[in-house]
């Protein structure tokens, strides 16, 4: 009986804390959404009202018809997809190689990849600008995608390596005895088995490419080349102060598809994370 009661209490505490976490995590997002459907005049009411009295889509209509946001949305989609592709190709190949080869110095190499990741970052922005300038790659979305891929790759390589190490080598041996070359066994056996890890790595790369602001703001200057975060930022600088209605509407436009994507892939994302060699 007693045990039953402590169990109940424990469940209740978990419930309370979970609800608190959900509130803290989602409230600003909910607030963003609620603001986006408010009339511009209503937004600055103080104290602010939670729910709009007459919800409206004017902010969305304006953003989607009167600004470069639709074009920038497409730019962001392009950059994100390109970054994901580069990341998964580079990291699955390298992860596999590091997991399976007996190359001397492979551990040193994987540490070096992480070390590069540590030291490069915002500090590189000036150098990247100069390189882009010299190579005429300012305003180039493929170049930006390459930068994002290079930021996402180090973790991804580690991650893929861990995942491949968990796949029994016997499966690839069996495939080779069954008539596969090493490349065929990689593509037909190892890659399909690593699908959850590829989902994890893709989402990780996506989150970087979709949201990054500083490097994009320095490399991209023309309105038609900008990515979504820059588009949002343009409502801060050029329209005088904060255009909350447009900012929030654009934010929701940017977040909604991603949210759907992430939540629907959450299962694979987690399976990928769990399969990876995150333990010793």
């Amino acid at each position, binding site marked *: 009986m007693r045990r039953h009661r402590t169990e109940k209490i424990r*469940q209740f505490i*978990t419930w309370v*804390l*979970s609800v608190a*976490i*959900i509130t*803290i995590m*989602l409230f*600003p997002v909910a607030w*963003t959404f609620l603001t986006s459907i408010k009339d511009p005049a209503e937004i600055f009411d*103080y*104290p*602010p009202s939670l729910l709009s009295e007459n919800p409206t889509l004017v902010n969305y209509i304006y953003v989607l018809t009167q600004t470069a946001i639709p074009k920038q949305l497409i730019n962001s989609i392009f950059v994100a997809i390109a970054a994901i592709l580069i990341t998964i190709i*580079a*990291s699955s*190949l*390298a992860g596999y*190689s*590091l997991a*399976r080869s*007996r190359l001397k110095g492979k551990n040193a190499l994987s540490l070096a*990849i*992480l070390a590069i990741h*540590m030291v*490069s*970052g*915002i*500090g590189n922005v*000036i*150098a990247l600008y*100069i*390189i882009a300038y010299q190579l005429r790659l300012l305003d180039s979305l493929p170049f930006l995608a*390459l930068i994002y891929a*290079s*930021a996402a*790759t180090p973790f991804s390589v580690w991650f893929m390596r*861990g995942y491949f190490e968990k796949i*029994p*080598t*016997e499966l*690839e041996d069996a495939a080779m005895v069954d008539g596969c070359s*090493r*490349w065929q066994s990689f593509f037909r056996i190892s890659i399909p088995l690593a699908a959850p890890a590829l989902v994890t790595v893709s989402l990780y790369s996506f989150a970087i490419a*979709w*949201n990054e*602001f500083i490097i994009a703001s320095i490399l991209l200057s023309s309105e038609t080349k900008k990515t979504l*975060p820059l588009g949002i930022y343009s409502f801060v600088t050029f329209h005088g102060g904060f255009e909350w209605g447009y*900012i929030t509407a654009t934010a929701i436009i*940017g*977040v909604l598809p991603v949210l759907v994507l*992430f*939540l629907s892939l959450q299962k694979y994302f*987690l399976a990928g*994370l*769990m399969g*990876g*060699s*995150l*333990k*010793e």
Partner: protein
Amino acid sequence: MKREQGPGGFGSGRLTTNFKGSGIYIWMLLPVILLETAISLYPTLYTFFMSLTNATLRSNNFEFVGLSNYLRAIGDSFFRQSFVLTLIYMAAAIVLRLIAGIGLALLLNKRAVSATVARGSILVPWIMGEVVVAAIWLWILDHQTGLLNALLQVAHIPPQAWLAYPTLAIASVVWVALWRNLAFSFFIQFAAIQSIPPDLYEAARVDGASYLSSLRYITIPLIKVPILISFLNGELGYGAALSGLILLGNLALCLIYLAVLRISK
């Protein structure tokens, strides 16, 4: 991550060798090496090289000035202050994120619906752009028009200038960074905790371990690598243009961290 070695390890599970030697493995590494060298390593070295010169963005002529840029930076009280603030911010953000990540991962490691929804909710801020997050929190924390002060008013607490006073401002920034970046740390720890076989805990319970000691002797040792990864993927490299000095700070932190890990092992 350790492989079996020695004669006993020849039975199974060992690495497969390839006929054509290691050629294919080197080819497979090529894309990453090219990518990271061109886009990360080269700009880093370039930045470091430029930091030893008096180059400016406007002119092509420059000469070596040794460490004088660094000395000037160290001599600049404004830089010193921002450097110290950055270090405080980084240390606080990383430590809090680790603790919060592990704590929440332990708390939400349940089958309950509320825990599942909470896990999903942690993911949401991470996929919101930095710009959106910054703008929204700027607004929420605003002294006059902010939502937080409006809420405090309801509870009869006087409004605070969240972003005006240094201590409060740093705390606010750390909070927002924690809020947004929790997901990565959380999910890595959560996945690791989930993949610890339950019999280990049962064995520990049979051995008389309390909740805390199984945390100390089973959970934490088994999630060491995820802890390291979420540390490495933290704030490092962000927040300062003068990356050279930040780098030193990072390396020092990293070394301390690795030393601690080794001791706890």
